[in-house]
């Protein structure tokens, strides 16, 4: 009888000790962080890697004093962004002919070359670019070349010629 009492007491003691551990809940901390999206920024650089900023990008052409010449200027386009999901955008370019005060015109053309498979050009005047999600820094879009050409038969008075060049960005293809 005594042995039975001892055994029961021992069993009860064991259950008590295990109850302290088995029923002990865990403690939990939840950490919350937020990464804010950053709007896409289009970056334009010249042939020497200088970033051209502002709404009015000025390009200077120096024409040689010879009968026949072709003068080109290149611009390079990049984007930086931090998007929650990928997106598509379109860059459209237009250029006017260079003219002097006497309305003499120097024909001006542009051509586009995409930098990667993420960019394609449309109609020869636009880049359609896929903007990747996550943080992206100065990802190449493509290269634009402005070309002014004079043939031997062309006669252009000397002086200052000016023209306009525009870049338009829209979301979507």
């Amino acid at each position, binding site marked *: 009888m005594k042995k039975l009492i001892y055994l029961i007491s021992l069993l009860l003691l064991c259950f*008590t*000790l295990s109850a*302290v*551990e088995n029923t*002990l*809940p*865990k*403690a*939990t*901390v*939840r*950490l*919350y*962080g*937020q*990464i*804010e*999206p*950053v709007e896409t920024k289009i970056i334009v650089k010249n042939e020497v890697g200088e970033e051209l900023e502002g709404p009015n990008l000025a390009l200077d052409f120096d024409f040689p004093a010879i009968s026949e010449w072709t003068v080109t200027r290149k611009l390079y386009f990049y984007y930086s962004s*931090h*998007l*929650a*999901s990928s997106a598509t955008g379109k860059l459209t370019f237009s250029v006017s002919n260079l003219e002097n005060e006497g309305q003499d015109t120097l024909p001006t053309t542009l051509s586009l070359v995409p930098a990667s498979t993420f960019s394609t050009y449309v109609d020869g005047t636009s880049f359609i670019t896929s903007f990747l*999600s*996550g*943080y992206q820094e100065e990802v190449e879009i493509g290269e634009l070349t402005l070309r002014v050409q004079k043939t031997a038969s062309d006669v252009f008075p000397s002086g200052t010629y000016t023209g306009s060049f525009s870049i338009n960005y829209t979301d979507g293809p």
Partner: protein
Amino acid sequence: MKTKRFVVILVVLIFSTVGLFANIPHDDIPTAVATLKANIGEFLYHGFAESESDTSFEPTLTIEDAFNNVPAFWYGYRTNAAGTYVFRMSVTDFVNQDDLTKVKIKSVTSSEHPSMSYSTEGYELFTETNSIMTESSRSDYTFITITPATVATGTDHTGTHVIAGAETVGGASAGAYVATVTFSVSAT
């Protein structure tokens, strides 16, 4: 005849009640004793505290803006229980709630354990061992710091995973992220 019976009954009653009204000596009055018994059971509390002197513990804690302010908090326990108890901590990466992108944890530190190292079973914070239940409780505290990876430099807190740019605050996709730190107690 009736009178004699009445007198006998009356005498018997008088003698039987004499004892009730007699004086009892003070020395014979027993002392009344009340025995009070109480049991204090074993307890073990653990959780988050305001400071290392705080005696109350919260089981849950929420920390906001973890990418701008490095998360840090006090963790501790108090117990009088007999036995061996090991306190461990496990940490998950920050996970984007939309696209499941991860931001890694760069480091996990404990003020009481500067040389604490990562284990697949979790970081071991305390080991409490007592052969018997004690009258007074014992407690211990540590200040925990969880640092998210902000740049792709070196490994994460496990020491084995090299952090990629897309696994940092500066390179992961935009969105809301959540990480969980869990504290558990076991016998070994």
